[in-house]
């Protein structure tokens, strides 16, 4: 070995250091031992030892979503890599920048069904933005730099770098420096100015405009959120957001209509249905948003701003597509709008708002409070009130509690709401909260959970204890896979097949067995005190909040229905759908 040569593993760690990586979420195994050796007592890079590789990826996602920086994962070959697949698929659908290093059997053994061999590049091809198999320690540094470049630019996403064990051991002198100049991957940031001009002119003719915003605004960075606020407030347009985009526009602003889509507000969905010009900003017309495609916003002309050309016209035909990064496009949009001295028809806008406000008065998130049992919506209202003004980040699991959290919590800033939108992964919220807490050690990080979802990654209680991550888990315990039960009630005549979460653990004792604090609350009159205790108790806290078992999450656009065919809370309980079993 010449004096400058280092082992592949040392080169890998140095590359991560050069890329500014401060934390890795991972789990060791035979095929990554050289990397773990190079990490041993490392001064700059902290390693968080998770208890399941899926959790490592979700933690990296939480880290990424709350900071805008890529999350980094390190797992072993075979089962380590396959356990990470759910997390990668989650990051893929939600466009989250994650770089996942996986160990692989030595190059010569690839293809021989060696111990703990899996075709990781093959398996992850469909759930990553890109992936690499490194064949020589001479290439490993450049590939890692390229992986970070691909993960974080354009439409972000997860990237896997599969590294055979011999590549980690063999020496090389190649340490990549400087930016990546890719030959074929060249994502465009700036939107076409002619297209933006057309968009400005179209919006200027609107009598019933709406901004439909999504996770792309958040991915674009804080500047995009600022520009969105500026533009909406300058023009006076109503704004609605997808689940992924919450926080890009402040929830408490009067222009904000709340979330749209399947469990969105009455005012937001009706405004989408009735508008004449829709500006879709960093969202992708997902089926949870559109409802029945042929009845989606039938009277509107549509503008679509998206960094990914393949999102344009994929589901809904748009009149003016603008391919580009949200912040870049909005900046030019704003400039053109001002330069053209555009202004919306004031009278028309006034009557549009009158229409919207009438729908707002319908008070679609209303629910019947009870004295003897905690309503899940009430629990979230109290959680919101008691955490208001604090430096707080929310994550969720998947189910009714997730939708209620989206409806009842308020988000004033981007990057403070982390939920599995595209893949809908139960077990996401708790590990994601660990990642958020790593990035924001002093902040209050709360996972709003269901009693079923939390059990999918409950083992991470061990991780938060080991690494002093004071995450709070707030379980809305309805003893049901509530969202499944709700669909069974609505679509399968109340046959609750396998949706009761029987044999629940004693969550308080469970928390205590790990050394965490467990709290339980059943009586509405104890709720505030319990929430305050959760917030004020140092270290990880798990709250078993017993709620009404059979509450349903409304409003709801039944699967396959149109935006103006919502079910509202006071029409619920007995209403049956003619459609029978829903397709999606």
């Amino acid at each position, binding site marked *: 070995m010449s004096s400058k040569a280092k082992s592949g593993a040392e080169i890998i760690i140095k590359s991560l250091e050069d890329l500014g990586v401060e934390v890795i979420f991972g789990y060791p195994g035979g095929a990554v031992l050289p990397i773990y050796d190079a990490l041993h007592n490392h001064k700059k890079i902290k390693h968080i030892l998770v208890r399941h590789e899926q959790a490592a990826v979700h933690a990296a996602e939480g880290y990424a979503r709350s900071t805008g920086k890529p999350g980094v994962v390190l797992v072993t070959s075979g089962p380590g890599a396959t356990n990470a697949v759910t997390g990668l698929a989650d990051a893929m659908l939600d466009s989250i920048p994650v770089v996942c290093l996986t160990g692989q059997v030595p190059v010569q053994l690839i293809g021989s069904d060696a111990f703990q061999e899996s075709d990781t*590049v*093959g398996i992850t*091809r*469909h759930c990553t*933005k*890109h992936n690499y*198999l490194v064949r020589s320690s001479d290439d490993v540094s450049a590939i890692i730099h390229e992986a970070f470049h*691909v993960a974080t630019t354009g*439409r972000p996403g997860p990237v896997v770098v599969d590294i055979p064990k011999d590549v980690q051991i063999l020496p090389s002198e190649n340490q990549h420096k400087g930016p990546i100049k*890719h*030959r*074929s*991957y060249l994502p465009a940031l700036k939107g076409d100015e002619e297209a933006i001009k057309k968009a400005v002119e179209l919006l200027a003719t609107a009598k019933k405009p709406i901004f439909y915003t999504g996770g792309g605004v958040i991915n674009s960075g804080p500047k995009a959120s600022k520009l969105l606020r500026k533009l909406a407030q300058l023009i006076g347009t109503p704004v609605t957001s997808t689940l992924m985009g919450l926080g890009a526009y402040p929830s408490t602003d009067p222009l904000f209509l709340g979330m749209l889509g399947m469990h969105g507000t009455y005012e937001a969905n009706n405004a989408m249905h009735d508008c004449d010009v829709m500006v879709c900003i960093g969202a992708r017309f997902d089926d949870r948003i559109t409802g029945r495609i*042929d009845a989606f916003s039938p009277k509107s002309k549509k503008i679509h701003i998206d960094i*990914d*050309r*393949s999102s*344009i*016209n*994929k589901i809904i*035909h748009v009149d003016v597509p603008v391919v580009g990064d949200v912040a870049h496009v909005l900046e030019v949009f704003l400039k053109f709008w001002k330069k053209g001295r555009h202004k919306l028809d004031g009278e028309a806008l006034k009557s549009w708002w009158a229409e919207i406000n009438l729908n707002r008065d319908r008070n679609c998130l209303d629910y019947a409070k009870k004295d003897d049992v905690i309503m899940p919506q009430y629990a979230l209202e109290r959680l919101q009130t008691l955490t208001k003004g604090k430096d707080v980040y929310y994550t969720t699991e998947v189910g009714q509690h997730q939708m209620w959290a989206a409806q009842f919590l308020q988000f004033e800033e981007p990057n403070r709401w982390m939920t599995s939108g595209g893949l809908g992964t139960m077990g996401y919220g708790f590990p994601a909260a660990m990642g958020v807490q790593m990035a924001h050690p002093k902040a209050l990080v709360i996972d709003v959970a269901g009693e079923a979802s939390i059990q999918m990654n409950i083992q991470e209680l061990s991780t938060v204890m080991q690494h002093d991550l004071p995450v709070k888990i707030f379980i809305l315990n309805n003893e049901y896979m509530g969202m499944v039960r709700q669909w069974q009630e609505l679509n399968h005549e109340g046959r609750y097949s396998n949706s009761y979460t029987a044999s629940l653990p004693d969550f308080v004792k469970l928390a205590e067995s790990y050394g965490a604090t467990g709290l339980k609350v059943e009586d509405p009159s104890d709720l505030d005190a319990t929430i305050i205790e959760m917030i004020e108790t140092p270290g990880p806290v798990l709250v078993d909040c017993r709620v009404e078992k059979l509450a349903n999450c409304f409003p709801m656009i039944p699967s396959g229905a149109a935006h103006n065919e919502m079910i509202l809370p006071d029409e619920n309980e007995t209403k049956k759908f003619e459609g029978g079993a829903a397709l999606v």
Partner: protein
Amino acid sequence: MINTPQKERHTISIIVDNEAGVLARVIGLFAGRGYNIEHLTVAPVDSAGTESRITVVTVGTPKIIEQIKAQLDRLVPIHRVGDLTEEGPSVERELALVKVSGSNEQRLEALRVAEAFRAKRVDSTGTSFVFEVTGKTEKIKAFIHLMEELGLVEVVRTGVAALKRGKDAL
């Protein structure tokens, strides 16, 4: 839905880095998203062997064709995606090897048809011929169809290779 849009056949050219797995990425995209592949050809096209050209003939509604091109464009090792059907006149050729075996009368007739199609006889035995025929897909199909009557044994086709007419490259 009423008015289902007409399906169209498009020839799509893709220039890619000639690296391991790139074909799997392209095919996987078609399979994973339920797109159709009618023909597929791939080979390195520069002398250094660093770039390959993939030609795919696919069928779909205009919306699907647009999606296919946009999705292909997203793949990291893909340099350029071109739609030869849309971007004006192109030449398309396919090569087939066609083996026939039959009696005297059939052999004579097979040779006559081959001549009419300008097919080359690249192998002959006392009881069989292998013809090499090139041309547009319709011509190849017609040739094979005629040979069915004349003792067709087996066929292999390269799939479509296509280039834009005129001086410009993709």
